[in-house]
């Protein structure tokens, strides 16, 4: 049975941290299963000092093609599928990032291989590989047995801590895809994030508004609490998508990663995509009416209650004249 292949997330000249998390996990599984670990980078040129950093893979591959210099999700998936189809690895490891979400299911679809998405744990029991996925907004875990055929895993970033640092693999080999179908997709440009009025990654106290705040009309209440605590208002994705707060206040997978001294979540359910951006906060406190909300699985302290009762009372108590 083949090897463990990690797809390096190489974008704009840098390898993403999650690649090293996957390499660390692959190394651990490889030791248990007696399989070697390979890593694959897709590019249009031999990147300086990238493939040379992708240890501790036993082998590093560079898939080289003139069309694959810029970010090109379909072309990357097709080139990777051609490479992987020849090799039939035991597992293909990628993650549920913007890169992995295009590539993982794409490869699975092109090759007819099973895909396991939102994977948060990988174990070996009696030589069977068992993956755990987080579904239903993190409220349910699905444990699956990896079949005896190549399988694509897309892991949630941050699932495999203790990432291994960069080091040089034994060798870097080049593989050039032949007959790649002409690109039907092209990168026009990168659009940089808008400048922020407030940098939520630097705030010590974050008061985080979730969909539970119900309407933009309730934002002043949340802002008042943040002021009273000397903190800053941040938000979950739906609050930002609704246009109630600017994008640069968003915490999570597609937002920012924060580690404040205090994260106070108000009506945030704690979906995996949100937790990805805040679970390492120093002190996590959550107020939510649903005791089963996944945010309570990472919170240090929780209040099962209505923010529209607790927040006004908290503000009242924090007012100087309230003493």
């Amino acid at each position: 049975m083949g090897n463990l292949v990690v797809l390096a997330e190489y974008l704009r000249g840098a390898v993403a941290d999650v690649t090293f998390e996957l390499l660390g996990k692959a190394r651990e599984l490889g030791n248990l299963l007696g399989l070697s670990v390979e890593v694959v980078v897709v590019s249009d040129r031999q990147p300086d000092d990238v493939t040379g950093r992708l240890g501790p893979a036993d082998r590093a591959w560079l898939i080289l093609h003139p069309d694959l210099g810029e970010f090109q999700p379909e072309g990357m998936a097709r080139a990777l599928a051609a490479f992987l189809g020849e090799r039939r690895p035991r597992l293909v490891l990628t993650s549920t990032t913007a890169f992995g979400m295009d590539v993982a299911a794409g490869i699975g679809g092109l090759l007819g291989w099973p895909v396991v998405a939102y994977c948060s744990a990988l174990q070996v029991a009696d030589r069977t590989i068992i993956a755990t996925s987080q579904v239903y907004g993190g409220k349910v875990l699905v444990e699956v047995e990896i079949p005896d055929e190549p399988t694509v895993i897309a892991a949630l970033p941050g699932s495999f801590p203790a990432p291994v640092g960069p080091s040089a693999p034994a060798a870097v080999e080049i593989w050039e895809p032949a007959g790649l179908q002409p690109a039907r997709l092209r990168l026009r440009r990168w659009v940089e994030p808008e400048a922020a009025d407030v940098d939520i990654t630097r705030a010590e106290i974050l008061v985080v508004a979730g969909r539970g705040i119900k309407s933009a009309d309730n934002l002043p209440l949340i802002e008042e609490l943040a002021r009273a605590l000397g903190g800053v208002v941040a938000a979950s994705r739906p609050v930002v998508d609704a246009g109630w707060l600017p994008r640069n206040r968003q915490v999570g997978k597609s937002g920012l990663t924060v580690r404040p001294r205090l994260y106070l979540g108000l009506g945030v359910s704690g979906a995996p995509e949100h937790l990805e951006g805040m679970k390492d906060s120093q002190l996590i406190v959550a107020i939510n009416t649903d005791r089963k909300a996944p945010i309570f699985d990472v919170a240090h302290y929780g209040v099962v209650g209505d923010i529209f009762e607790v927040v006004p009372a908290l503000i009242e108590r924090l007012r100087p004249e309230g003493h």
Partner: protein
Amino acid sequence: MNLVVVVREVPDIQEELEVAADGKDIDRTFISFVMNEFDEQALEEALVLKEEGQADSVLVAALDGEGVDDILYTALAKGADEAVKVIHGLEPPIPTRVRAALLAAALKSIPHDLIFTGVQSAEDWDGQLAPLLGAALDYPWVEVVTAVRLEDGLAVVEKEFKGGLRAELEVRLPAVLGIQAATKPPRYAPVSRIRQLMRTATLKTVEVNEMSPAPAAKIRRLSRPVASRSAEFIEGSLDEVVEGLLSVFRNAGVLRGEG
């Protein structure tokens, strides 16, 4: 320019979800279904493109299943021109790859230039629909799309990365887009309009044959997560809760200027 929006029902995760007795699925007896929130975004983006005159029509399609009529009528009430229910004969849960195969077969008889669907659903642990559908149809696909503009035979899309970084990509049509967020929040369909359409409108149907089972990882069991560290709950009267919170803040040294 004909847009097709593929939508699906998912269990309402705001409600209680229980694991079925055999541990292989959630208990589907008493749950209510809602449209996948990202499909709502996909539908909104398609409707906006039609209203702006960038597209001519919006057709919604869904695989048959419990709660599907409701979401299709809701889509019509929001402004979709047509709704198609794909009849298949499979029992839930249907693996995403099988969904993609069924939909690809149904799309043969549905005119389309561009297909929209949600970036993910609460149930697609075996892969997201957009790339699987793209691979099944041999169309290009893009996941995590937050903006779409149509030009001659092209869709120009923004794909979102972490921290607000976006890639502007041009995609040759036909293509499949997995929509993360529409350019504006999804509209609301008045209940009276949905009720009216349930009496007057018809859902078209397309029948497809059962697909051979796709390889999938075998489910061992479903479970509720066990917290890695369980929160200490602050309970009691409102006053006690507030005092409890303040003492947590104080102990952590984050309470400044109090009293």
